[in-house]
């Protein structure tokens, strides 16, 4: 394990911004080559080691990594099965992966699936990852909004934090 302080300092550094009414964007930097991050995202044995929660028991972890191929993750969380699945739409290893993501816990998951656009930009062995999640429609957005997960602020999180902290009174 590297003892480079940069490595240990990256924990908790993912940033969420909300670029539009129907999207959110996750940004995170890793001290690893893009190829390795891509591999960790698309290899079942590796996905099982990070994707769920510490307490997740894996039931299904299927990845058919080709355009039109499907993926499905199901984990057991206490007495509840939590499942997601989708289809790969674009694969440009190791820099870009576009896939759908349907949450199986809602009615008609596929009609309400999100589109996830993963990009990996490597500079000198350090990779900046972005995941842009596009919700499918105003209606789906409203479902999310009604459940208390507002997705509509254009003010970026960082800006919002300044506003809240500063009070701007």
């Amino acid at each position, binding site marked *: 394990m590297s003892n480079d302080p940069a*490595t240990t300092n990256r924990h908790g550094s993912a940033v969420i911004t909300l670029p539009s009414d129907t999207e959110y964007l996750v940004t995170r930097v890793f001290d690893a080559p893009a190829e390795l991050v891509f591999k960790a995202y698309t290899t079942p044995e590796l996905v099982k080691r990070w994707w769920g*929660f510490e307490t997740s028991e894996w039931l299904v972890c299927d990845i058919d990594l080709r355009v039109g191929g499907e993926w499905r993750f199901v984990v057991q969380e206490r007495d509840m099965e939590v499942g997601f699945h989708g289809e790969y739409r674009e694969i440009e290893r190791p820099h870009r992966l576009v896939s759908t993501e349907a949450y199986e816990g809602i009615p008609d998951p596929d009609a309400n699936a999100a589109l996830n656009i993963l990009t990996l930009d490597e500079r000198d062995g350090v990779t900046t990852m972005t995941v842009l999640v596009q919700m499918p429609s105003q209606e789906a957005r409203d479902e999310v909004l009604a459940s208390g997960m*507002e997705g509509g602020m254009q*003010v970026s999180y960082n800006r*919002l934090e300044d506003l809240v902290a500063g009070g701007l009174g």
Partner: protein
Amino acid sequence: MARTATTTDVFNAVAEASRRHIVDALGDGEATVGELVDRLQISQPQASKHLAVLKAVGVVLSRVDGRHRWYRLNGPALKPIHDWVRTFERTWNTRLDRLDDLLAELQHEEEQS
């Protein structure tokens, strides 16, 4: 689906694009209705209507100075939204910190072999 009125819920109050533009604009400092109309290219009645909604949920405050009414942002009223983003961000951080640890382990394994 039951929705709370725009005038009682900060989430719904800022769920409208024009009102978010006003929030963004007021983030730069106090402004009059006229300044917001100029900057955002909306009509005065629209601007006044949106400001009224934002005032009703406390996101915007106003004061009168001579002939002008100045509007400003009340940051703490946005806290529920801020808190939601933070909660969501924490969930992602938990997952990505695990990925971070895994990548470190994999690189360590590669160095060993």
